[in-house]
């Protein structure tokens, strides 16, 4: 008997189209599913209807494209899906009811999620970010509707203060306190600005939130605007985030269509609109006063505070600047209440934090964890430990403003105070795991290269000081370090921190100071013994062949791009140190471990 279309059961195919998903072919995968279904329809009548759902990043980017097949109450997740696999899944799973085993997610997927607590990322990975209705269906925009009818702006501020949420942009300033200061600042016009500059190398939390759940940011802006008394908001977002910009534009347009943005919202007399301002991708433009200058059309250079933006911000008016993640939390706090929020986390750090977990861990990706989780739990339980069974060395948190935390401190809880105590910061949420093959001097140099290039050039300690710090690090890694260099680094680091104008310069020395604190020996080895213990710094390495072990197979000779290896067949080979460019090709290719690298 033929079933009518409505009576057939619904199967949902959910595909990740975050930047990671898109890059891995998310859109093509959806098309392949559609095509496979249509092709099968020609020959057989299907007893189900298939629906497609595009969702934002769900964190496990290493395994993209991730696809869920949701059939009633059961949901099956596939990983690493390519368009050509779609047909098999349709045939074997959707039609015959047998999930395709090879592509099913494995235990590490569950381990990756077990210790996470997803508030922001929950909706990110399950709803269609290009459909406002999808957000509304999971409770979206109920927060703003609730407050405009039932709460005064002061009530909202008190609720946010009671939740004890602190800014996710780096400094961890209490959000409610900031809003209150702005609301109380004299003036008739006020602005709310969302900071989506996200300039830290390796950070992609804010991008993923906007791509995966843009309406949560729009609603957060609305609630903040209502609380502080603003009727115009800006999102300052870097132009290098095209997908996020498009989603945000679409979200704003859809909100307009439904009358969620514009005049007299929900009949309450509250007006609000959002504008998007594209940034050109300068790290310093994430600093709030530089960000304001940039929106105003000036060069993005920080200025001295006071006056603080809450008193004198955009166009000289009281302005609140909040990070994407901060704003995205707001609707959930309003919906579920301050008590619910403040029950998550530790003493002074409440709620969850999203981190971009990268580096030498097995499971890289975007994670959301409750404040107070131990670093070790993130690295070993969620991250699955170190790749290739190497030795864990340190975890770098907070990006260029942060520091490296060594193995003996893996018990440190992840919250604002605890990370600060061990010489690092939460920052915006970058987390790079380092193993025994990472040289700490080199890591510090990497970050200094970044901060030096991104310094706005306004003040001397940052513009020239970071350059000199970088030069000292550079000579240490090249074997030209001198006695006294460590002390010079320490003095200059302290002076750059103390004398710089903005957060960029004030924190730029942190990667050096924290590596000096925990890995001083490595600096000393570079300077005194001219050795790089992690065997990274090329200039300090010598490649040679251990005659007794060498079988004379000639693999190294063939692999050497510089023609530096000579030797007769079946006789020990030799490396000419003059010609050797230290690329390590011989070391990698030798099957008998007869190439020594010291």
């Amino acid at each position: 008997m033929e079933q009518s279309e409505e009576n057939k059961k619904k199967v949902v195919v959910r595909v990740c189209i975050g930047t990671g998903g898109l890059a891995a072919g998310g859109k093509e995968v959806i098309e392949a599913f559609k095509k496979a279904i249509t092709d099968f329809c020609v020959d057989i009548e299907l007893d189900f209807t298939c629906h497609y759902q595009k969702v934002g990043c769900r964190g496990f980017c290493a395994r993209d494209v991730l696809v869920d097949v949701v059939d009633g109450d059961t949901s099956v997740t596939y990983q690493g899906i390519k368009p050509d696999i779609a047909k098999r899944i349709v045939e074997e799973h959707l039609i015959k009811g047998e999930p395709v085993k090879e592509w099913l997610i494995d235990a590490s997927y569950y381990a990756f999620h077990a210790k996470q607590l997803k508030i922001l990322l929950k909706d990110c990975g399950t709803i269609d970010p290009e459909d406002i209705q999808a957000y509304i269906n999971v409770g979206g925009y109920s927060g703003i509707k609730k407050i405009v009818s039932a709460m005064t702006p002061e009530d909202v501020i008190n609720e946010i203060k009671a939740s004890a949420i602190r800014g996710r942009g780096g400094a961890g300033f209490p959000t409610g306190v900031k809003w209150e200061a702005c609301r109380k600042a004299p003036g008739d016009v006020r602005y709310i600005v969302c900071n989506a500059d996200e300039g830290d190398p390796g950070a992609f939390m804010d991008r993923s939130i906007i791509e995966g759940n843009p309406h949560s940011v729009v609603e957060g802006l609305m609630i903040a605007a209502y609380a502080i008394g603003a009727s115009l908001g800006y999102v300052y977002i870097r132009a290098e985030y095209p997908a996020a910009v498009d989603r945000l534009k679409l979200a704003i347009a859809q909100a307009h269509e439904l009358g969620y943005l514009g005049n007299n919202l929900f009949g309450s007399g509250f007006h609000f609109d959002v504008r998007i301002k594209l940034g050109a991708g300068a790290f310093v433009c994430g600093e709030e006063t530089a960000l304001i200058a940039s929106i105003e059309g000036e060069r993005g250079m920080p200025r001295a505070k006071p006056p603080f933006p809450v008193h004198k911000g955009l166009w000289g008016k009281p302005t609140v600047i909040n990070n994407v993640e901060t704003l995205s939390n707001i609707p959930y706090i309003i919906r579920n209440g301050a008590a619910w929020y403040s029950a998550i986390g530790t003493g002074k750090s409440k709620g969850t934090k999203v981190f971009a977990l990268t580096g030498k861990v097995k499971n890289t990706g975007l994670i959301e964890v409750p404040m107070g989780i131990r670093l070790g739990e993130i690295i070993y339980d969620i991250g699955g430990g170190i790749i290739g069974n190497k030795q864990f060395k340190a975890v770098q948190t907070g990006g260029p403003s942060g520091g490296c935390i060594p193995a003996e401190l893996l018990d440190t809880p992840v919250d604002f105070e605890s990370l600060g105590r061990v010489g690092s910061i939460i920052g915006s949420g970058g987390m790079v795991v380092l193993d025994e093959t990472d040289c700490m001097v080199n890591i510090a140099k990497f970050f200094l290269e970044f901060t030096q290039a991104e310094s706005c050039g306004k003040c001397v300690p940052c513009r020239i000081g970071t350059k000199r710090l970088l030069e000292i690090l550079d000579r240490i890694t090249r074997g030209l370090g001198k006695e006294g260099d460590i002390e010079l680094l320490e003095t200059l680091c302290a002076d750059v921190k103390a004398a710089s104008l903005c957060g960029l310069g004030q924190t730029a020395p942190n990667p050096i100071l924290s590596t000096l604190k925990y890995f001083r020996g490595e600096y000393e080895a570079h300077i005194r013994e001219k050795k790089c213990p992690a065997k990274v710094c090329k200039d300090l390495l010598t490649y040679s062949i251990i005659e007794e072990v060498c079988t004379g197979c000639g693999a190294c000779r063939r692999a050497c791009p510089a023609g530096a290896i000579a030797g007769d067949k079946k006789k020990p080979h030799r490396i000419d140190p003059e010609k050797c460019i230290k690329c390590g090709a011989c070391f990698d290719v030798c099957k008998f471990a007869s190439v020594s690298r010291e």
Partner: protein
Amino acid sequence: MPKVTIDGKTVNVPEGITVLDAAKRLHISIPTLCHHPKLTPFGGCRLCLIEIKGIPRPVTSCTTPVSEGMEVTTTSPNLESLRKTVLELILSDHPNDCMVCERAGDCTLQELAYFYGIRENRFEGERRIYTKRDGNPFIERDMEKCILCGRCVKVCDEVEGVGAIDFAYRGFKSKICPPYEKDLDCEFCGQCIAVCPTGALTGKSWKQKGRQKEVREVDTTCGYCGCGCNLTLHVHGNEVIRVDSKADTINEGWLCVKGRFGYNFISSHDRLKKPLIRITLKTRDASRVTRNEVFREASWDEALDYIAERLKSIRDKHGPDSFAGLSSARATNEENYLFQKFVRAVIGTNNIDHCARY
């Protein structure tokens, strides 16, 4: 009037002034490089860092407004060591060729290096090398000496309203330049030179004419226009080698391109010192007529009598309306008044006009 205590001295100061200005009132000097009293605060050089009780880190006195009961320390071992580091860092990226620099003796950076006794420098390293020189006619821009204090950018924008230059690039490579690093093409008022605390900006016409030694300063009034800006001529021997203007004058030290750079006529060989009367030569071939043959020198009496006589004869022969007078913006109000009086009352016509109307 908030009461503030600076280095133990207490004073009442007007609301809203900066700690730097408050210190000035107490005759306490705080070193600065990027600060200029007539420009908005910048806070970039970090030399004016001070300590304020209750604030955990040093702040710049040029940007911090005073508040009631504020307790300020302007000098301490920590502050002095920060200042020394800042200076050493600047000098580590400076040609340090004071020996041949135009501004030696009139350079704030040099002065500070002297006061802080910076001979050795802990921070040697790469220096910016700019080979490109600017092809404009007036302003020598040696950006290797630039300390990026931003004063030139501000004066050009805030005082001159031109905005011909701005910051470009980031990090160590940051640089002040005209758009797209083209040659400077602006009013050439030279205000930027006037505020530059280093030898980065100088007048092209100043080159190797003399620095401070044996240079006299002569205050005078500019003769170019009726504004009457105050000038200070810098005179070496008997030659004017440079012109600037003092800050406490009616023009507040600001000048225009003519006043600042148009001084070479003073000792020019071509300069007119006596009246000349044109004589008609009876040469047929016009191409062979030279200047000496056309004008002859005359005394003032002879020249003025000659003009009066010719004017009279034109008026008598062709009537007063055959005459028109055009007066000049370079003359003062009084001179312009007299001139129209002369045209109306002596010649007897209303044909009088002024170049400023065109």
